[in-house]
């Protein structure tokens, strides 16, 4: 790189700059001592960032001499992440009201969003790494946000150690890559390298580093402990946002890779996918804590989504985007319900604690049941069409056997998803478990309205998915073209 930066075009980073402004202001509000406007400022900066992204829609923008390239695909993924962030803000507002460090909390979340924004909108490996680090450093702190919770600290340390390790792997891969191709561009995948072995080793290390971020097996070990230890609102964010960003990067990998690397990439993806589906689903069966169960379910879901990568460029990208859209809603919906239920609990919420929920809080139980049914992929919810689309592109790409494994593990997943429904609807509550843990429903709360909206969306995605599918399908070819 030359010392004179040509064609910077800061506008291309406008969404991130808005987030940065919000994050900075939040720190000052905290400094002023009151903590009044924290939530509105955080929401406002995310909404402004969303608006900026929407402004770029269909016209695209480039900056930093092409290092930042925002096409519709990149915009779609970052928009999805911001929507997920908004949902998790509402959760945090419900879970940590009047926490004295709330300013830092939202500020860190905004920094994490800057990281995802950079990850999604570049085709340069070094810049991707930059994004990953911005995202990860914020998340390490957030996991340990509740300093007085032992499990939280344990989770934070674990996440930090394993996360740094995976970042190091990515960086090593990047170095090898640079050695083999002399460039940090992903597009170098396409050209025949002087040292294919070096290139493949580099790619493998980077895939492992990214696999960690989406909690794909066998890089999933951190997920259950971190999800359980972290505040539920943080866990919900970690379960969605880094996944979406990492899948955006994966999609760029998948669409660029060619030659002998292609088979190696496909083999790695198949391995991670099958391992994730098998390990995730079978281990989820044995969980008693609901957050741990959701963690393993997330590992399994990552396995399903990975199937879509095999079908790039024949529609796999839009299948992944559609799955992720549905996944945001059903997974965050489930986390929102759990977070709302567990906020007054001194301990982690067990599945058996939900017994009799249907009798006490019928609406709440219904919402959680809908999310479980959707995660299981049963129509008429969005989860069904998400799986359907993934399976379709998987078969189309010729990976029938992988899809059959997915089908069999889906059957296994019915057991643990439906078990939650059974416990809520078909078992009587132990009296003492519920004393005072949940306030009587008192009118419309923000989180209640949000959960209701997510339920509606989950059904809408299952009954009228056409619109969402079309937007995913039209946006995504651009990911391939725009690097």
């Amino acid at each position: 790189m030359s010392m004179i930066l040509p064609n910077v075009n800061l506008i291309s980073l406008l969404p991130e700059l808005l987030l940065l402004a919000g994050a900075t202001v939040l720190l000052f509000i905290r400094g002023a001592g009151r903590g009044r406007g924290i939530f509105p400022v955080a929401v406002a900066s995310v909404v402004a960032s969303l608006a900026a992204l929407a402004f770029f829609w269909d016209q695209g923008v480039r900056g930093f001499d092409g290092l930042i390239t925002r096409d519709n695909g990149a915009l779609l993924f970052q928009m999805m992440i911001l929507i997920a962030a908004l949902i998790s803000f509402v959760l945090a507002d419900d879970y940590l009201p009047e926490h004295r460090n709330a300013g830092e909390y939202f500020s860190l979340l905004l920094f994490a969003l800057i990281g995802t924004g950079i990850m999604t909108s570049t085709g340069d490996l070094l810049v991707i790494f930059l994004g990953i680090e911005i995202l990860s450093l914020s998340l390490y702190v957030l996991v340990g946000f509740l300093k007085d919770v032992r499990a939280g600290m344990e989770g934070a340390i674990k996440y930090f150690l394993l996360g740094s390790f995976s970042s190091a792997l990515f960086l090593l891969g990047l170095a090898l890559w640079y050695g083999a191709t002399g460039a940090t561009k992903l597009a170098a995948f396409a050209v025949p390298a002087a040292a294919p072995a070096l290139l493949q080793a580099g790619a493998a290390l980077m895939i492992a580093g990214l696999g960690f971020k989406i909690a794909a097996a066998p890089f999933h070990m951190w997920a259950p402990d971190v999800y359980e230890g972290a505040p539920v609102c943080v866990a919900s964010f970690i379960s969605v946002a880094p996944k979406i960003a990492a899948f955006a990067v994966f999609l760029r990998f998948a669409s660029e890779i060619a030659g002998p690397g292609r088979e190696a990439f496909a083999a790695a993806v198949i391995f991670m996918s099958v391992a994730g589906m098998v390990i995730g689903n079978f281990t989820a069966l044995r969980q008693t804590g609901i957050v741990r169960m959701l963690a393993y379910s997330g590992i399994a879901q990552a396995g399903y989504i990975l199937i879509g990568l095999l079908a790039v460029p024949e529609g796999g990208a839009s299948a992944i985007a559609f799955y992720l859209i549905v996944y945001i809603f059903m997974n965050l919906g489930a986390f929102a319900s759990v977070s709302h239920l567990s906020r007054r609990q001194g301990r982690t919420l067990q599945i058996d604690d939900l017994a009799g929920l249907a009798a006490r809080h019928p609406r709440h139980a219904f919402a959680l049941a809908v999310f479980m049914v959707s995660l299981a992929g049963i129509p008429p919810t969005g989860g069904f069409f998400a799986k359907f689309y993934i399976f379709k592109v998987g078969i189309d790409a010729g990976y029938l056997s992988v899809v059959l494994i997915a089908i069999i593990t889906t059957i296994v997943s019915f057991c643990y998803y439906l078990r939650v429904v059974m416990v809520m609807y078909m078992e009587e509550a132990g009296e003492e478990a519920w004393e005072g843990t949940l306030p009587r429903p008192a009118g419309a709360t923000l989180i209640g309205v949000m959960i209701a909206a997510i339920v509606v969306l989950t059904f809408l995605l299952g009954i009228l998915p056409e619109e969402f599918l079309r937007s995913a399908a039209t946006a995504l070819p651009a990911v391939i073209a725009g690097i």
Partner: protein
Amino acid sequence: MLFNADIPLLTIIVFLPLAGAASVLLAKGRQGIQGVALTTTLATFALTLLPLWQFRPEAAGFQFVEQAPWIAALGISYHLGIDGLSMFMLPLTGLLSIAAVLVSWNRIESKEKAYFISFLVLETGILGVFTSLDAVLFYVFWEAMLIPMFLIIGIWGSANRRYAALKFIIYTMAGSVFLLIGLIIMAFLHRQIGGVFTFDMVSWLTLNVPSRWQYGIFVLFFAAFAVKVPIFPFHTWLPDAHVEAPTAGSVILAGVLLKMGIYGLLRFCLPLLPEATLYFTPAIIALGVIGVIYGAFTAFAQDDLKKLVAYSSVSHMGLIVVGVMAGNLAGMQGGIIQMVNHGLSTGALFILVGALYERQKTRDMNRLGGMAARTPVLATFFVIMTLSSLGLPGLNGFVGEFLLLLGAFRYQWWIGALSATTLILGAVYMLWMVQRVFFESDRSGRSETPSDLSFREQAVMIPLTLLVFAIGLYPAYLTDRIATVSRQLISAPAIKADSPSETIRLAAAPVPVPIVMKNRGGDER
């Protein structure tokens, strides 16, 4: 269409119960909820009768067709229509849903609202399955219907309900997901051969599926339908589900849900995969015959009334499988008619068993007895339904069983002979049940006299009984209307498949073998 084409009749039929479910949500009080549910089911039933007299029996293909784009990006459309195979299933569903609401009247102690909503959603799902002509639409209804049934068994069932509910849903869902894969592969084949990626079942009918794909797809389809029928050895969920389900749940389960398995076989496997159908026919018929005999003997060994009726269902459904797979007109017509008959008589038997249970608080036959003297009306209905179930001439069961056995004999005399044991064994366990429950001496140890059937219960039973006689005495009404579709179904394998060993078998069928078509068989280019 004969019916005013501007009115989407089938859509109204399918979604009326769902609208009713929404109204139940708003209804206040127990009477209000029940009133809304009853009104909805009555109105739905009335609407399901409309197609009956506007249906043109001689016309091939589907009638009352509605089609609109749904998810064009994936080749999925909203496509409804009925033919002779599905047309009688709609009123049957409508009628049994009314019965389900009436037998639950004032009987549900907790969560009535959720209960009736579940039933109405279930009804929409079932009607949707029988009218869908798009494979994905079919699948959506097929699976969506399982959740309310799961809740009905699991929430309002008896002691061991959770186990039964989970077993029911895991078994049926496990089968269904294989169906989904089969459907997706079919759509790809259609793209490969027909040029369009579509899930439209009517387009699929014109497709000659390459033989190397037929067997795999058949196995995927069969997994779903065999569990639902249930064909031995996939039946083990059925007795559990029946015993634990509330009465109304058993009525719908036995009356309609089991028919969906046969319906699926006839709608998907036979017309779409003729070659594989011919290949697997002997194995399926063998399983059917095993089901007939095994079900009967197991029923014989039961003390629990509900279990007995459940195993008798396994036996009867086995016979239907034998008949429809036999590949001749008699068996096919008998199978379709028996789907209706079995729904009526077994549904009615479950209602009566439920009524008995309410009065005596037991279903154990060793603790019943002598009921005929004390509840003569109940006993009369029970005996009629028993006789219908075991195939007494003049009642509906006879028509179906006679045709089914005729079909089985035409297939292979010894298959027919083995299947015919259902008549003897059925008579044995059914009549022994009647003897133990209604005659002999009272073993209940209860002093008070149980009340006879109430007006409400009689209102349920009388129409069912009338239908039992009507079909028994004038079966031509049914056979005329299903003749066309039956011919299509048995000729599908003959036209499309290219299997010389089958010519002999088909020669026995009343349809001429279309030898001219032989050269069309074989692999695709």
